[in-house]
């Protein structure tokens, strides 16, 4: 047993008994952690109502060596996720961040950069600006962090580099780009314009201020969405629940 302190995002809550909960946290230092929070539903106590979905808090937990649930002993709220005004889509965007963190990371596998990216994404969504680009960027960050970013510079079949501006298609079952020479009619693939490929590369490389500088056409949004939906679904081995509700 060891006591750990970390910044954390609450990504899932499940009732355990009438007043206790099992909390899934995405912690900056320890990655995903599932911990029992005794008395978490009471108003007073070591958690002070800090344990709401997507709350950013400072936590203390005891790591169980036996492989059982960790034990959460403290949670201090840093800030809540507060979607702007009456915007359900912003709320769903926040839920989607939680779904990706929960679905694509392993317990006790730390990804501090991913943690920071998740906070940035939630802040961007909460700021009330268009959530589409921050979400696309976060999807690329998650894929990169878990080693499943599609190859964006080369054909995923022949591995020849794809020049910027070259024609390519997105091969759904392989989750990567494919050059015209390798493409077969029986492969399920989708159209992707060279401009969209360039956008994907730019979004995957940069992680901060690029979002505001880009102007993206509706057609490019559609292609970006389709490409990332297939890359994420491919990695998750199912279609994310929140994509059915998120408006893009």
């Amino acid at each position: 047993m060891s006591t750990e302190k970390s910044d954390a995002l609450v990504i899932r809550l499940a009732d355990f008994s009438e007043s206790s909960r099992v909390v899934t946290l995405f912690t900056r230092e320890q990655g995903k952690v599932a911990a029992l929070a005794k008395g978490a539903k009471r108003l007073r106590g070591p958690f002070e109502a800090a344990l709401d979905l997507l709350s950013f808090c400072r936590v203390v937990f005891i790591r169980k060596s036996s492989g059982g649930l960790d034990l959460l002993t403290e949670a201090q709220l840093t800030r809540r996720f507060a979607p702007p005004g009456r915007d359900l889509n912003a709320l769903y965007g926040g839920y989607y961040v939680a779904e990706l963190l929960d679905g694509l990371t392993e317990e006790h596998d730390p990804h501090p950069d991913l943690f920071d990216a998740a906070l940035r994404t939630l802040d961007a969504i909460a700021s009330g600006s268009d959530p589409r680009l921050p979400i696309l960027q976060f999807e690329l960050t998650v894929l990169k962090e878990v080693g499943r970013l599609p190859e964006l510079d080369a054909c995923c079949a022949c591995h020849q580099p794809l020049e910027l501006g070259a024609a390519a298609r997105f091969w759904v079952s392989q989750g990567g780009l494919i050059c015209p020479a390798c493409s077969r009619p029986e492969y399920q693939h989708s159209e992707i314009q060279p401009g969209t490929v360039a956008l994907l590369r730019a979004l995957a490389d940069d992680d901060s201020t690029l979002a505001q500088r880009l102007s993206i056409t509706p057609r490019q949004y559609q292609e970006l969405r389709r490409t990332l939906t297939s890359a994420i679904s491919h990695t998750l081995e199912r279609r994310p629940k929140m994509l059915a509700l998120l408006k893009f």
Partner: protein
Amino acid sequence: MARRDFHPEEHPFGPAVGRLVNRLADLPGVGRKSAERLANHLVSCSKREALELADAIRDVKERVHRCQRCFNLTDGELCPICRDSRRDAAVVCVVEQPRDVASLEATGVFQGVYHVLGGRLAPLEGITPGDLTIDSLVERVRNQGVRELVMATNPTLEGDGTALFITNLLEGSGVKITRLARGIATGSVLEFANREMLADALRGRQSF
């Protein structure tokens, strides 16, 4: 972390007592020790006392169901609150669970009626509008002269999200939508709020 279930045969008083202890220990807030104490009491009290408890449990399970109008728990067609003609049926307080009705009723402040959703929208857990009584609520608002909806879902991200979903759904229906004042800590649940807090939250309700 699951509670260790003793095999009933292992109980020193035999399997019948063992089984009773196990079932009592399944109840919320009852640990192994309390379960032993309760079982001991039931074994040694009069037969009549013990069977009254058994009958009360059976009665509740066989007769209590959802109110046809508001989905509160009741043993009649309509719950006592919906049946009470002194209550203002045009003001409907929307809550997640029947226990929230009990908490709000304990304040004695609210004069309207209720609508129990049966939970909150939690798309990540697969809980969608079809799993709640949202359709019936919309029907009540449109056809039963509802003037005000008081949103009293839990002040959590999902509880607020549920209230927001309903508010958006009823946009343009002309119903006034208010929510409990924020006296109750965000992130907590109504059933653990105290009576004065809830009374203040009801009196100070504000536009959504």
